[in-house]
C-alpha cells in the first residue's frame, strides 16, 4: 500500500537541431501529427509520438533518429525542445532502475511495423456489407498475451519450405477478429543493435467464429523464413520464434489491424481469390466462413473461385483439406511452378486458362482479393487485363469501379 510509485521511463524521440534542415518531411510523414515546428526547430511531442518510425527513413539528414531514455514525468516539453540549438547530453540512467521499465517501453522501437507492399491500386474502403471491424484494441505498448494451442507443420516433411498452422488462444480476453484482418506478433528480446524487435504482421487464417467454431482462438499460416527476398540466407526473427513455439507457450499480440481487406456479408457476393504461399491465410478464413454458413444451412448464391500458387502440391498449405471441398462450393485452380517434367505454371497462367469463368465473375457482383509475394502483382494484373479484353470488358474502367466500391483488395509483402 505504501510502496513508492515506480518511476516510469520512456525512450523519448528527439530531433537534433544542429543537423536538421527544417525540410518538413517528418511533419508531413507523421501519421498521427506528433511533429510540429516553429521558425527555429522541428520537435516531437512525447505525449503523442508512438515511435512508429514512419519518419525515420524519409529524413534526409539523419537528425530524426535520436532517442533519449528519460523519466516520463521529466520528458522534454515542446517548448523546451523549441529553444534548443543542440541536443542536450543524454542523462545516464541507472541500469537497475531501467529494469523497472515496462514491456510497453521496451516495445518503443526505432523501427516501423511492416506495411502493405502492394504497388497496384487497392480499395480504400471495405465492401459495403462487411461487418464492422474492431481495430487497435491492443498495441505495441499495450499488447495482449495469447497461448499457443497448437503448432502443426502443413508442408510435407521432405520438402524444404516449413509452413506451419499455429493456433493462438485468447482464453477469456476479448479479441474480436474478421477474415482478412491481421494481428501483430511481438517477438521478445532485442536485436543486434540492442533495440527491441519490431512487430511482424500476420493475416489470420481462421474465420470470425474461431479456428474451432465457437472457441476464442484464431490461426496463423506462418512460413519459417530462412532466406530473404533476394534469396540470401537469413533467419526471420518472428517467423522462427513462432514456428518454434511449443503448445502452451505465451506470445505477445497486438491488433486487430485492417479496416478494408474484409469480406462482404451479403450471400449473393462472389469472391475471386488469388494467392500464393502463405498469402492463402485470408482466403482460407473467408472460404471457411462461407463453408460454415453453408453447413448451418444458410446457403449462399455467391460463387467462390480460388487461384492458388505454390512450388508443388507438397508445399501448398492446406492442400489436402482444400481438395475435399466440393467443386460446386468452390472453383479451385492450383498453379505449380516446380514440378518435375512439367512446365512452370503461375497463377496468372491459370487465370488465363479459366478466362471465361473469370470474366463472368468480374462482370458480376464480385469481390477480388490478392495476397502473396509482391512479385505476383504484375503478372496477375496483366492476366486480368487480358481476360477482360478477350471478353469485351473495359478493364481500366471496371477496375476503377471495383476499387471505388471496395471490391478490389491487394495485399502483398
Amino acid at each position, binding site marked *: 500500500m505504501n510502496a513508492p510509485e515506480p518511476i516510469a521511463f520512456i525512450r523519448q524521440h528527439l530531433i537534433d537541431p544542429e*543537423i536538421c534542415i527544417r525540410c518538413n518531411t517528418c511533419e508531413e510523414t507523421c501519421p498521427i501529427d506528433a511533429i510540429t515546428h516553429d521558425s527555429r526547430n522541428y520537435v516531437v511531442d512525447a505525449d503523442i509520438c508512438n515511435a512508429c518510425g514512419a519518419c525515420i527513413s524519409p529524413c534526409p539528414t539523419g537528425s530524426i533518429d535520436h532517442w533519449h531514455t528519460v523519466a516520463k514525468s521529466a520528458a522534454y516539453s515542446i517548448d523546451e525542445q523549441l529553444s534548443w540549438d543542440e541536443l542536450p547530453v543524454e542523462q545516464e540512467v541507472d541500469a537497475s532502475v531501467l529494469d523497472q521499465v515496462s514491456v510497453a517501453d521496451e516495445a518503443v522501437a526505432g523501427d516501423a511495423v511492416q506495411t502493405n507492399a502492394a504497388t497496384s491500386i487497392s480499395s480504400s474502403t471495405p465492401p459495403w456489407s462487411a461487418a464492422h471491424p474492431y481495430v487497435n484494441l491492443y498495441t505495441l505498448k499495450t499488447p495482449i498475451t495469447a497461448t499457443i494451442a497448437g503448432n502443426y507443420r502443413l508442408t510435407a516433411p521432405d520438402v524444404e519450405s516449413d509452413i506451419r498452422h499455429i493456433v493462438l488462444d485468447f482464453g477469456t480476453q476479448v479479441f474480436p477478429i474478421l477474415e482478412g484482418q491481421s494481428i501483430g506478433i511481438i517477438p521478445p528480446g532485442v536485436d543486434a543493435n540492442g533495440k527491441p524487435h519490431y512487430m511482424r504482421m500476420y493475416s489470420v487464417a481462421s474465420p470470425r467464429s474461431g479456428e474451432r467454431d465457437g472457441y476464442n482462438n484464431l490461426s496463423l499460416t506462418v512460413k519459417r523464413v530462412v532466406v530473404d527476398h533476394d534469396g540470401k540466407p537469413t533467419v526471420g526473427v518472428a517467423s522462427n520464434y513462432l514456428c518454434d513455439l511449443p503448445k502452451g507457450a505465451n506470445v505477445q499480440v497486438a491488433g486487430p489491424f485492417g479496416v478494408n481487406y474484409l469480406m462482404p456479408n451479403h450471400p449473393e457476393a462472389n469472391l475471386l481469390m488469388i494467392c500464393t504461399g502463405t498469402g492463402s491465410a485470408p482466403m482460407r478464413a473467408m472460404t471457411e466462413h462461407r463453408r460454415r454458413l453453408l453447413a448451418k444451412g444458410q446457403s449462399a448464391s455467391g460463387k467462390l473461385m480460388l487461384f492458388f500458387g505454390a512450388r508443388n502440391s507438397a508445399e501448398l498449405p492446406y492442400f489436402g483439406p482444400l481438395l475435399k471441398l466440393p467443386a460446386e462450393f468452390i472453383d479451385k485452380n492450383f498453379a505449380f511452378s516446380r514440378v518435375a517434367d512439367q512446365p512452370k505454371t503461375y497463377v496468372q497462367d491459370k487465370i488465363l486458362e479459366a478466362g471465361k469463368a473469370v470474366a463472368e465473375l468480374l462482370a458480376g457482383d464480385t469481390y477480388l482479393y490478392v495476397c502473396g509475394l509482391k512479385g505476383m502483382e504484375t503478372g496477375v494484373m496483366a492476366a486480368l487485363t487480358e481476360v477482360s479484353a478477350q471478353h469485351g470488358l473495359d478493364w481500366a474502367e471496371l477496375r476503377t469501379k471495383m476499387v471505388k466500391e471496395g471490391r478490389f483488395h491487394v495485399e502483398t509483402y
Partner: protein
Amino acid sequence: MSTIDYSDKIPNNVNLSEDKTLQRALEHWQPNYLQWWNDMGPDGSTNHDVYLRTAINVTPEGWANFGHVKMPDYRWGIFLAQAEEGRKVNFGENKGMNAWQEVPGEHRANLRRMIVTQGDTEPASVEQQRHLGLTAPSNYDLRNLFQINVEEGRHLWAMVYLLHKYFGRDGREEAEALLQRNSGDQDKPRILEAFNEETPDWLAFYMFTYFTDRDGKFQLNALAESGFDPLSRTCRFMLTEEAHHMFVGESGISRIINRTCQVMKEFGIEDPEQVRAKGVIDLPTIQRYLNFHFSVTIDLFGADQSSNAAAFYSAGLKGRYEEMKRDDDHLLKGGQYRILEVSNGALVEREVPMLNALNELLRDDYIRDSVAGVARWNRVIEKAGLSFRLVTPHKAFNRHIGAMAEFKISPEGRLISETQWQANVGNWLPSEADRAYVASLMGRVIEPGKIAGWIAPPPIGINRQPIDYEYVRFN
C-alpha cells in the same frame, strides 16, 4: 521488338503495364533518356557502384531503399503520392469542383507550359553539375552529388510521364525537346537563365543546392496545390526527394564555414588573404557566392507583376506555397500585396492587386525560408567566437528579371549609379579571381574517410553508415 521488361525496368505505381499506349511511348523515350544520361550525365561515372537511395514505392518504408548500383542501372521510376479521396480544386474560380483527373481543355496550353518549364530544370542541373565528380572533396560528397543527379533524372521522368500520359503528340514532342536543349548551349539553351549558369566548383554546387533547389521546393509546393490532380500527386512525391538536395547544400556550406573558422581560430587570423594562405575559403568570398546565388535564384520566380501568375491561380492550376494552410478566401480578388518600385531615387513599396503579385508572394516566402538557413550558418561562426556574419542581400540586388532589372541596387538596398556599381561589384559578387582561387582548392579526394582540407567532415554518414564508408566504389 524490345526485349526489355518495362513493367520491371520502370518501377511505378501508375499501372504502367496496363496502359499500352503510354508504355509504348515511354519505351520509345527511354533509350533516348539513357543516351542523354551517357552524353550529358556525370562525367566518367557509368561504371561506379554508388550507394544510392532508390524509391520503390511511396510509403515511408518504400521510398528510401539503399544499396550500391551503377547509375545507368538506377531504376528511374514513376511515382505519384497516394491519391487523396475526394480531392477538390482548392482555390481560384473553380474552387470546390472535383480535382481534375484529366487535363481540362481550356487549360491545356498553360498546364503544358508549366510542366515543361519545371521539367526543363531537372536535366539542366544534371548538365550543370556533370564535371563536379572530378573534384569531389570526399567519397561521401561524391555520393551525395550522384544521388542528387539520379533524382533530378527521376524528376525529369515524373514530368515526362505527365507529358506523355496527358498531352498526346504535343506532350511527346515536348518530352523529346527536354533531352535536346542543353544547359549553356548557345543555340538550344535551357529555358530559365539560372539553369544556363555554370556550376564550376563545389562552393557553387552547395550554394546551388541550398538556394536553387530551394526554388524547386517552392515551385513544387505551389504545383502540389494544383487542381490537376496527377500534377499535384507527382509534385508531392518529388518534394520528399528534394529535401535531400537542400540538406547537401545547407550542410555543405556549414562544413565549409566550420573548417574556415577552425583555421581562423587556430592561427588567430581574420584577414582574407591570410585565411586563403592556409588553404581554406575566406568568409567574404563565401558571402559573395551567397550574394550571387541568392540573387540569380530569386529571379527564377519571375516578374513582380504577372498576369500569367494571376491566370494560373484563378484557373486553379498553380497555388500559393502552403495554400491549404492559409486562412483566407483562396480567391484573392480584393487582396493587395506590396511590391518594390523606384520613386524619387529611392526604393519604395507600392500596393498592387494580390492576384497579379503572386510571383512576388512566392519569392517572399522563399526568401523567408532561405534566411532561416543562413542564420544557422551564422551560428557556426558565432560558436567559433568570430564576429563576421553572413547576410542575404536585398531582394532588389543584382536582379535581371522584373521591375528591378533596370536599376543598380546595393546589397543593402540602396539605389546606386552605374559608376558606384562598377566600383563595388567586386566586393559584392564573386570575381574571376575569387572563382580562380576556389577552383585552385578543388582536388579529387575519394578515399573513404579522407576529406579535402577546405571543408570539415560531415557530422554523420548516410543511412546510419559510418563517415568512412565506401559510398562510391570505383571499378
